[in-house]
């Protein structure tokens, strides 16, 4: 299932869901805003492809990590806002924890070598 970031961005695959959950933690956002926010927060390093974003969002909805609600955007368009659920917060915490652990381990290997 294409839920990973583009490999050209050099980002480990499988982290998109975590990133999306992370940017939703602060406030509910719509799809375009999510992509934009990730792009900005990573100093334009990471480009989120729509082809990956929407399947990831559907998976998040299906798993019950976020709720969707239709609303109006800043530019006055009808858009769908995604809002984190308690289950989503828990999932984010656990994914971040796992990620930190793996990251630390990788870094340890890189330093010693």
């Amino acid at each position, binding site marked *: 299932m294409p839920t990973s970031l583009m490999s050209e961005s050099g980002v480990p695959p499988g982290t998109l869901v975590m990133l999306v959950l992370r940017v939703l933690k602060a406030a509910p956002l719509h799809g375009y805003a999510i992509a934009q926010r990730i792009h900005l927060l990573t100093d334009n390093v990471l480009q989120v492809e729509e082809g990956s974003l929407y399947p990831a969002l*559907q998976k998040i909805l299906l798993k019950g990590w976020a709720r969707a609600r239709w609303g109006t955007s800043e530019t006055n368009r009808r858009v769908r806002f995604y809002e984190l659920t308690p289950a989503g917060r828990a999932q984010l915490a656990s994914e971040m924890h796992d990620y930190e652990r793996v990251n630390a381990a990788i870094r340890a290997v890189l330093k010693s070598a």
Partner: protein
Amino acid sequence: MGELWRRFWYLLNRSRFERELREEMASHVAMKGDAGPRFGNTLRLREEAADVWGWAWLDKFTQDLRFGARLLVRDPLFTLTAALVLALGLGINLAAFEVLDTVAFRWLPIPAPETLVKIENAHPRGRSTSFSYPAFDYYRANGSPFAAVFGLVYGEVTIDRDDERHVDAEFVSGNYFVDLGARPLAGRLLTPDDDRPGASPVAVLSERFWRSRFGGDPSVVGRSLAVNSRPVTVIGIVPGTFVGLHDDSARLWMPVSQHPAAFPGSALLEDANDKGAVRVYARLRTGTTIAQAEAAVAPLPRALHAARPEAANDDEWLDLLPAGHYLALDQASAAGVALVFALVLLVLVTACMNLGLLVLSRALLRDREFSIRLSVGASRQRILRQLLTEYLLLAAIGAAAACLVASLTTRIVAAVTEMPRGLVPHFSARSAAAIVCLALLSCVLFGVTPAIQAVGPASARRPRARGILIGVQVAAASVLLIVSALTVRGITHVVRAPLGFEYRRMLTVDPNLASHGVDSARADAYWRELAARLRALPGVVDTAVTTLPPFGNRLSINAEQTVFYGVTPSYFGAMGIPLQRGRLFAPHEPKVAIVSESLARRHWPGGDPLGQAYHDATVVGVAGDARSVRIGDASASECYLPIADDELAQSVMVVRIAGDPALAARAVMRTARDLDPRLSPAVVVLPDALDRRLDSARQFTALAAVLGTCALLLAVIGLAGMVAFTLSQRIREFGIRLALGAAPRHVARAIASQFMPPVVLGASAGSVLAAGIGAILSSELFGISGLDPIAHAGALLLFAVVTGAALIPSVRRALRVDPAATLRHE
């Protein structure tokens, strides 16, 4: 809301969710404008996002299903034939399964069937299935592990002074109907109160008997009937749905304590030596297992022996057998069931082979379609999955049609075999599951396997697969046809071949002396007087007394399979059995015997039997062969001894009539009943008795014939279809051959050479198999050998003629083809 539920919710509201995705993406595209890379193909993106919901397989499946359905509708001949083939093959199997399930595996429709047991009497020398009444009474009073014990005594009674026929009656303990949970159709049923000594004689009638004999007249309840010429009040009607215990075929039931009322002089209730009288069933107390109950009753026979030595031997024990099913499957009945199932399965085999042939020819036809699809990029797997879906659809249609066939067949079987109405087979989840499994299996095995071959590249193997399919199908069909031909031959043989005595001009009189407690001295006087009176009647030629009534169920036999008769000297004259050598014996002559011709030839080959000893008697005469008891036994080993005094009360009289015995029956009955008004003898017309005796054989013949016809039909459909198809494939070749000067018979030979080998091989294999089945069936074949050439040749000829007739149109088309037309057609 869990994830599974949410997935399902997505499925239900798919169009709404897809619309939302579309809208969402549209605004995303609008907001993005021209910045960055272009938004991808929205349709593909939407599909990819929707794939997350997990329903993609369903889409593909419905797509395949729609395509499959379109194909089936477009080729209605194939679809109808395949559905018909499946319906016949599966339906008949399902019906057989249903019937077996109902009689052998499903509980009887009575309360707590699992606690019902049959009590049998075992001892080191063997076992007996019944008890004397005093023994039954003792076990009833002392059988602590039983919640209830009931006994059944079979008897034949007459219902009307003017009716010579016997009616099956059952004398049952008073708790019988109460315990089995029967409810009356009218009036009331027997209760323990009716079974007390001194109660007035009452009876209940079966619904079937009530309707056939009294036209369902409600005023019969409360009326008095002349049961064996005694007044007995009818108190109620037992509904036809009542199943009773597995061997209960009674038309009329009375309390067992009233046996003497129906049979004046009956000593049943006191006679401890009459050990074949009462069949005994019991209810285990809840929670008691059979092993526990057997342990608890183990000391009873010994205790009974101590109290009444003649009632039980001290080495007896009681065997408890589960009786909660209509048919208790023991080794003998299981073998019969297995044989019937083997024959029924052959129909399924024929059907499956047929389906295989159909699919194979269709797959060949679709070769073009498959290669086009493969070349434009479809995977083999995708095509196979599509084929699988197609045959799944076919299996569903076939299974549905099979259910129809099965319900019709079970209904017919239930009606023909007179199964109790309460037992009529009905669909269960089990049989539905069985049919679906069978349908899937046959479709996958015989539908998809040829399809794989067709899709695969090795087209060289196809002719062999076709040969196997044809051969096996012909073999299965010939087995069924030959077996049914054998059974038909057996029955006609019995009816046509001389049995060795004049049964067409005979009847028997059975006064049931032993049941009425008549001793041997009075029996002797009775027979003399009856003979004298009957001989005075016009039309009566001769009479004799015998222990074994012709076409009866009684049998006395030794290890050499010789049947022993006790007869009066006039027996040979009355039966029309010629005395070929020696002399007749005198009444009561000690230690002499007359043997049948076949026995003499077998026992003293080439020697003189006269004066020789046989079973501590001296042979004084040789009589012609007469198969009066074992009518199916061609060897006809008979040994006749002068009837002994103690056999007289258990014997019957045979009466030879000058004209039609049916016309004399009434006069004979009147004379016999006038002789002793306490007895009401039954008169049996022998041609009728033979008819009844052949009933089970006829049923088997009917079954075999139905199966044979189905197999023939299936095989003809398959073969004719296959040949027609192959010929249409080769029609151009034939046209060219004919144009180049080949004679039609050459072309015909080319056609035959393609199909004959598997057909001949199959027919030979079928012949061998059928001979084997014939050997197993020998007792139902009445002396016809399993190798009977007429049956084999007749069945195969029928097969050849029917198949040949079905082939004529397509072969003629092939031979008459206009070469120019076929060439132009390309």
